């Protein structure tokens, strides 16, 4: 492939809320190549979902203020007219969301909602669309799809509803699928099934996936590249193995340390990051992570660190101390001695 499919340049998103102006995303740049699987990890409020919604043009503008650029096939989606943007949505870029049951219209049958997605972009008859929808539902792992076609969403479990959402997202063969915490509201046992299904179907269709999650460990299953976000900024980005084996950012280390390890490595107690993520209403000056960072120095409180190359252009980190801290290897037990 020549060049990325999608490029986000210096994206910033803010909106007025009770208590002030929320700065949800503060200068995010990223790119996505054809067929690539990119994971975005971070705690709630890190700006992950808002980034995805901004790419899709699903934020209410105004009152939301979106600056920067989202380039796709030579066009900036942010300045595109709504009627042109709708031809991109669903056809070139599809999205699936958290809490799938609420994402389906309770008043319409599941099949009709898949048919609707097909007919939004393909000039096919209702009957043809019905056939395609049943096939899609079947591929998404809905048992007896022809029989389930006319059923309503409230008769579907969360996992089944997310399968329907995946069928809808893939209905027009998109080149990019944005998955915004698609398994967060689901049972842990269902989580792996849904993730595997999504990755498998996207691979079949050669669609790129941008998978948003708060669970960094989940991304280890499939992601080619991982971006870690905090306070509306990218803190670290690297190919997946590098993130886990040569972790550079103290925040990423914190995220990795707070993962429950099946082998019991890392000691009896689970490490947590002290404090809470900053309110996007009042981001701290300097590095947004400094109030919670054990390594923070004076410079971190005043100067926003830039996202700079660590060892290669592929591994970048936004930390003043990145060069000084020993790289962290999540595979080693307690590499930083931070666990009691």
């Amino acid at each position, binding site marked *: 492939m020549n060049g990325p499919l999608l490029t986000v340049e210096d994206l910033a998103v803010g909106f007025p809320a009770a208590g002030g102006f929320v700065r949800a995303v503060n200068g995010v740049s990223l790119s996505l190549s054809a067929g690539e699987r990119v994971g975005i990890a971070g705690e709630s409020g890190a700006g992950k979902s808002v980034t995805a919604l901004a790419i899709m043009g699903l934020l209410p503008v105004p009152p939301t203020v979106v600056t920067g650029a989202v380039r796709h096939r030579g066009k900036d989606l942010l300045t595109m007219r709504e009627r042109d943007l709708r031809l991109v949505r*669903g056809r070139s870029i599809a999205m699936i969301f958290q809490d799938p049951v609420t994402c*389906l219209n309770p008043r319409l049958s599941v099949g009709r909602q898949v048919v609707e997605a097909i007919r939004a972009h393909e000039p096919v008859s209702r009957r043809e669309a019905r056939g395609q929808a049943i096939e899609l539902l079947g591929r998404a792992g809905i048992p007896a799809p022809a029989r389930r076609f006319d059923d309503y969403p409230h008769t579907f479990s969360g996992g089944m509803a997310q399968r329907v959402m995946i069928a809808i997202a893939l209905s027009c063969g998109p080149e990019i699928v944005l998955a915004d915490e698609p398994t967060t509201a689901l049972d842990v046992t269902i989580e792996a099934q849904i993730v595997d299904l999504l990755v498998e179907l996207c691979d079949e269709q050669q669609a790129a996936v941008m998978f948003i999650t708060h669970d960094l460990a989940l991304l280890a299953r499939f992601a080619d590249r991982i971006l870690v976000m905090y306070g509306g900024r990218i803190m670290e980005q690297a190919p997946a193995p590098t993130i886990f084996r040569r972790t550079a950012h103290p925040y990423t280390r914190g995220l990795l340390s707070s993962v429950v390890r099946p082998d019991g490595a890392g000691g009896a107690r689970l490490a947590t990051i002290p404090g809470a993520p900053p309110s996007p209403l009042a981001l701290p000056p300097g590095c947004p992570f400094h109030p919670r960072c054990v390594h923070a120095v004076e410079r971190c409180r005043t100067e926003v660190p830039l996202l700079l190359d660590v060892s290669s252009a592929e591994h970048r980190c936004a930390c003043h101390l990145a060069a000084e801290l020993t790289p962290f290897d999540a595979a080693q037990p307690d590499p930083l001695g931070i666990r009691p």
Partner: protein
Amino acid sequence: MGTSQTAHLVRRVLYLVPTWLGLSLLAFVLGNVAPGDPGRAFFTRTRGRPPTPEELALVREQFNLDDPLLVRFGHWVLDAMRGDLGTSFSTRRPVTEELLSRFPATLQLAVAAMVVALVIALPVGIVAALHRNRLIDQALRAASMLGASMPGFFLAYLLIIVFSVKLGLLPAIGRGGLENLLMPALALGLGESAVLARLMRSSLLEVLGENYVRTARAKGLPGWKVVLRHGVGNSLGAVVTEAALTFGFLLAFSAIIEQIFVWPGIGRLVLEAITQRDYPVIQGFVVFAGTVFVLLNLVVDLIYVRLDPRVNLGSRRSLRGDLGSRDG
């Protein structure tokens, strides 16, 4: 429709019985604690002079007014079960016949007013919601505030002054063709449209914030399809309930407008009956009004099953309160 739903409908119809009994008992009691003597009123009206004590006694006997209240109530209930709501004191015609002969006029007016209300309310509410907090929304909200707070009789006189007196375009009174229907329908419907428009606006705004609307947009559906199919389609529940309630009010409480436009409907019949202390007619009307509301509740239930597949009448998992519990 499942058997549990059929059972629910049967139960709803059976609700009519206690509703009727309660309402007519109330009408009976209120009529009897109110000052004045229906026998005297009848005599005075028909003969043009007050009755002598002997004449009064005769009239009271004729109408069984001397029986105890409960006895008269019992008689009335037994007759009502045979479809006989008694005889009007003033016209000596059966009350059932009086009500039925006036019903078409009232129904016609109520339907016309409802059409006026919905034709205005739905587009206004949708447009206002889509332009939330912008100038057009503010203007429509101001207009609907005005519409909701303007009494129907005031609007009625305003219409008569403009269209009948000044312009001479429309007849001020009576029932006949469309030109007779226009002003009373507007006077009745406009105020209701304001209420319905505000409800349409608020429920559409609520629905437009739902996750499935975001899904619909993410599919790349055209904006109008998102708004109509996923937005309006899903916000009609509240509007339908309110519209049914409104229709009940239009049928049962259009007396003032009927009086102003000399519209020969049930409202005017009742006004006359009240001034003449014509209890059988008043009671008959109370039963009529109660029936209207119970039946409309039933209709709303049926519409709900169509509107929302999650509603299962049998288990009473309704998404709304009953009509009567609002303020009936």
